């Protein structure tokens, strides 16, 4: 029991070391799939052994050594099948000391690992799972738990993702500079999805999923350390900080959703907001403005209003107009309609919504009905508002959201 207090720091340390050690093992053995398994096993061994026997002098070397041994075992059993050609190579791999000189490339390695895990050939679900395991250092069981699927299913998903990477023959190296921008966007999208998974899970039974947001922020922070000059990386990190700052105020104790305008702003995490704003302020002057920065800027405007009625809607509208020009995203168009309504009146907002009715991507989306209901309510057409709140409730697949929409309808129909 004396080992108890050690558990948390060890877990943290292991998760930080995971991508570093994995980078070293992949570099040496050139087999990402097997290396990833080896590092996961080494990490498991450490989690069992370190609390009992104390930390090794050099935890990273310990992990690397164990992972090398596992790799050697793996190759040996493989080559036993294909005769014994590789014996010499294995011995070298096993005997060579962990390469501490490679330390300065750790960060590059982490980035390359992220590029691999978020490869466009993978489905989002596979990329998310693989990223959380290979770079985040989470166990398969933890990831399965977070996504509420059986562990065997998650294991299979990860192993298929690794197989796709193997089949695609992607080398373990930095993509070319032309490719790099594109690939970094894919990484950011996966990190954004992980954050979103955690953030929108609000009710008590899903509390553990909130860790996914923290993990997404940690990984994005790492990418920001490696790419401090990339404004969109900073933008995404700022967006996460500014959004997550409102987490406590977002739901009631009973797990009900509380919309932004009604949130108890004293519950917002002021320090995190300050961090997000500071990050944004150093980033914006650097030039190229992208969608994540704009989203972050919008979040910052909301966060800086001490009361809902103090919100600087004209500024938010201007930001949404920039964002709309940048991306043809119907959800952005919906938010733009809300901002328009707040500045120019509900009727103007409703007119913009009419234009979205024929957009197949959003026509059947519950959010179109939800926004329409909200604007109709602002316009004073309560009967139609009730109808659209109910229509939105019938379409959403989100439990707290459905309850929220139904309670809005109930409130208006008295």
């Amino acid at each position, binding site marked *: 029991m004396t080992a108890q207090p050690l558990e948390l720091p060890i877990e943290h340390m292991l998760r930080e070391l995971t991508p570093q050690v994995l980078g070293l093992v992949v570099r040496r053995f050139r087999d990402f799939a097997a290396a990833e398994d080896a590092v996961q096993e080494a990490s498991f061994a450490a989690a069992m052994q370190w609390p009992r026997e104390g930390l090794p002098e050099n935890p990273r070397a310990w992990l690397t050594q164990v992972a090398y041994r596992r790799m050697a075992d793996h190759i040996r059993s493989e080559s036993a099948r294909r005769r014994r050609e590789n014996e010499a190579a294995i011995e070298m791999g096993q005997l060579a000391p962990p390469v501490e000189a490679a330390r300065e490339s750790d960060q590059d390695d982490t980035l390359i690992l992220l590029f691999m895990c978020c490869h466009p050939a993978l489905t989002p679900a596979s990329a998310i799972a693989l990223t959380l395991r290979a770079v985040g250092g989470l166990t398969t069981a933890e990831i399965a738990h977070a996504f509420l699927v059986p562990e065997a*299913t998650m294991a299979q998903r990860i192993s298929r993702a690794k197989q796709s990477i193997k089949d695609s023959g992607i080398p373990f190296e930095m993509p070319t500079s032309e490719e790099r921008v594109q690939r970094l966007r894919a990484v950011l999208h996966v990190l954004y999805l992980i954050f979103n998974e955690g953030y929108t899970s609000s009710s008590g039974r899903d509390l553990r999923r909130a860790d996914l947001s923290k993990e997404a922020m940690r990984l994005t922070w790492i990418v920001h350390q490696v790419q401090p000059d990339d404004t969109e990386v900073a933008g995404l990190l700022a967006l996460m900080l500014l959004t997550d700052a409102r987490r406590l105020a977002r739901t009631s104790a009973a797990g009900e959703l509380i919309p932004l305008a009604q949130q108890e702003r004293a519950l917002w995490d002021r320090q995190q907001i300050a961090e997000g704003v500071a990050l944004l302020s150093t980033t914006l002057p650097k030039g190229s403005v992208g969608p994540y920065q704009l989203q972050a800027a919008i979040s910052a405007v909301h966060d800086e209003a001490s009361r809902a009625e103090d919100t600087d809607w004209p500024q938010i509208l201007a930001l949404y107009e920039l964002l709309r020009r940048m991306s043809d995203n119907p959800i952005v168009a919906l938010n733009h309609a809300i901002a328009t309504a707040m500045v120019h009146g509900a009727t103007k907002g409703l007119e913009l919504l009419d234009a979205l009715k024929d957009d197949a991507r959003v026509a059947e989306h519950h959010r179109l009905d939800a926004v329409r209901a909200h604007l109709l309510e602002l316009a004073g057409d309560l009967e139609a508002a009730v109808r659209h709140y109910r229509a939105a409730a019938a379409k959403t697949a989100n*439990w707290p959201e459905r309850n929220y929409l139904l309670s809005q309808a109930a409130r208006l129909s008295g």
Partner: protein
Amino acid sequence: MKYILMMNGTKANFAEYAKWSKKDMEANVAFMRSFSKQLKDEGVFVATEGLGWPDQAKLVRAGKDGAPITDGVFPESKEFLAGYWIVDVDNPEQAYKIAARVSGAPGPGGVPGNMPIEVRQVLGSHSDLGL
């Protein structure tokens, strides 16, 4: 996103199934087994169960004192759940494709049964922030 795929049938459908040849039945069972295994291998499997047949089905309501009041008389046209699969997929289209696969499970003479499969989304707490 998770979807439940439900295979429904009337009492008449169940009674027909009971008359299948041993060979047809075995082919169907083998198909279902391999289908579940495929879902697992594909990394989309969440759960599956087959249900007892409707002959023993009861409709239960709470009486005044909370005691169960049971009723088992159903109209002939009523559809009963025969079994379900829950899958975790990236989009609804993927769920429909999986449903079509199981709909094509072999019936009498090995001919695809093309049973209707009801596909419904399972409520979760996930919602896209929309970027």
